[in-house]
């Protein structure tokens, strides 16, 4: 029990004291995950919409792949990105291994399928409802996609936030490709892993609490957005 008591006290002290190291780590975590989610969204929204709306050979396979990829094991993703970005790998010349960019790449790969699959679902549902209207008024494909994305924006935002939740809570991939370098690639989750390995369980748990607070806030935001949309637009 003392570990838990200490953890809460540690978390409280870190937060209240605005510990500069903690602030740096939390900021870096947010920056990396936001960048990853933004990049993933830029890919996933058109991809999800395309899979929802276009009929092309192999479409079913893409849907299955996207759904399966929602559960990609982070460690495997980390390893693959590691091998790609290593100087000995095909993308080695960019020298990206053990940089925040590598972590963004890994998180982006982890999160992209989640956002794409949820986008596909959202757009499919909405399209089913709007299809006859859009065809009736002669909306072209671009206008139709624009209408669906705009009217699905709250659910799409929820999808993006779901991706963000996964990105910020992930440890396996970013540890491998980032190297957990202090001040450079050390984020909340890798710090928790490190402090655990140093036997500083209270500090690790304290950081864990902060991570949970951040993740819960994001989830709460997602729910609030969803509910607001529901009550406004049905």
């Amino acid at each position: 029990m003392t570990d838990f008591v200490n953890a809460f006290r540690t978390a409280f002290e870190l937060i209240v004291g605005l510990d500069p190291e903690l602030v740096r780590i939390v900021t870096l975590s947010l920056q990396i995950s936001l960048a990853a989610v933004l990049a993933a969204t830029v890919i996933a929204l058109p991809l999800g919409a395309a899979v929802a709306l276009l009929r092309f050979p192999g479409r079913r396979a893409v849907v299955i792949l996207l759904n399966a990829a929602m559960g990609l094991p982070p460690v495997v993703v980390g390893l693959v990105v590691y091998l790609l970005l290593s100087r000995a790998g095909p993308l080695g010349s960019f020298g990206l291994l053990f940089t925040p960019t590598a972590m963004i790449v890994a998180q982006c790969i982890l999160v992209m399928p989640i956002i794409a699959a949820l986008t596909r679902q959202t757009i499919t549902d909405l399209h089913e409802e709007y299809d006859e209207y859009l065809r009736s008024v002669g909306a072209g494909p671009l206008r139709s996609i624009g209408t669906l994305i705009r009217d699905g924006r709250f659910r799409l935002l929820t999808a993006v936030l779901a991706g963000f939740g996964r990105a910020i809570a992930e440890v396996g991939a970013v540890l491998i490709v980032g190297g957990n370098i202090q001040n450079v690639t050390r984020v909340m989750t890798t710090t928790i892993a490190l402090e655990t390995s140093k036997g500083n369980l209270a500090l690790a748990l304290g950081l864990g609490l902060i991570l949970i607070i951040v993740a819960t806030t994001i989830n709460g935001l997602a729910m609030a957005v969803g509910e607001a949309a529901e009550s406004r637009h049905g």
Partner: protein
Amino acid sequence: MNRTLFVAAPILVLGLTLLPGLSGVRADEGAYITVASTTSTENSGLFGYLLPAFTEKTGIEVRVVAVGTGQAIRIAMNGDADVLFVHHRESEERFVDEGYGVKRYPVMHNDFVIVGPATDPAGIRGMEDAAAALAAIANADQPFASRADDSGTHKKEISLWAAADIDPTGASGSWYRETGSGMGATLNTASAMGAYALTDRGTWIKFGNKGDLQLLVEGDPRLFNPYGVILVSPDRFPHVKAREGQAFIDWLMSEQGQQRIAAYRIDGQPAFFPDAVP
């Protein structure tokens, strides 16, 4: 309710967090080197003590990737680090011989100790022969937590078992527990199940979750743990920052660097001993 605001707010938040974010992420432009090293040097706090002095003097930032010795060597062999700083002499010499590194500098040493439950069911407390202590643990069928991760500590442990003429891997899963993890994680495991373990002294002193564990065996010359530092070969990997990397090595070997290593204390105890005092 203002709808524009409702939609714009999340986007604005996203943008505001991201803009400084991307610039921060790109702040790679300052001179820095990547050092592949071991958890013992990082987790013991030594780097946290040494590096600011070096950076202040030279303006070169040092980024430490702390993993097991075996993995650190593989990172360097892929050219993903500029400097290798580990503790397994044979592997280090092979690294240089095979052309991956320029030269091995003997920078410092510390020592390994055997820790175990305070009750010491195998009765090894105070033994001066580390191999005999391991044999006693094996004969008593008492749990032993092994790194089993190809680290320098793990390599040392294997050599001690060999000296005791015991192959513990046959008992893997019974009294011999292979964690496949770093030093800290292995100590956590040992602490939780009352097992013996081999650890470097620095990590042990700094370890925060000792629980029932105590230091039982130390002082055997075979527990000597030398660290070497090697510049990754710029001939083999043209992108290696040879000048900055060599500057780091030169500083470590200099009087200032050596004094600083000697001055480092964990809980008032010296943890590393310089080997290159000029």
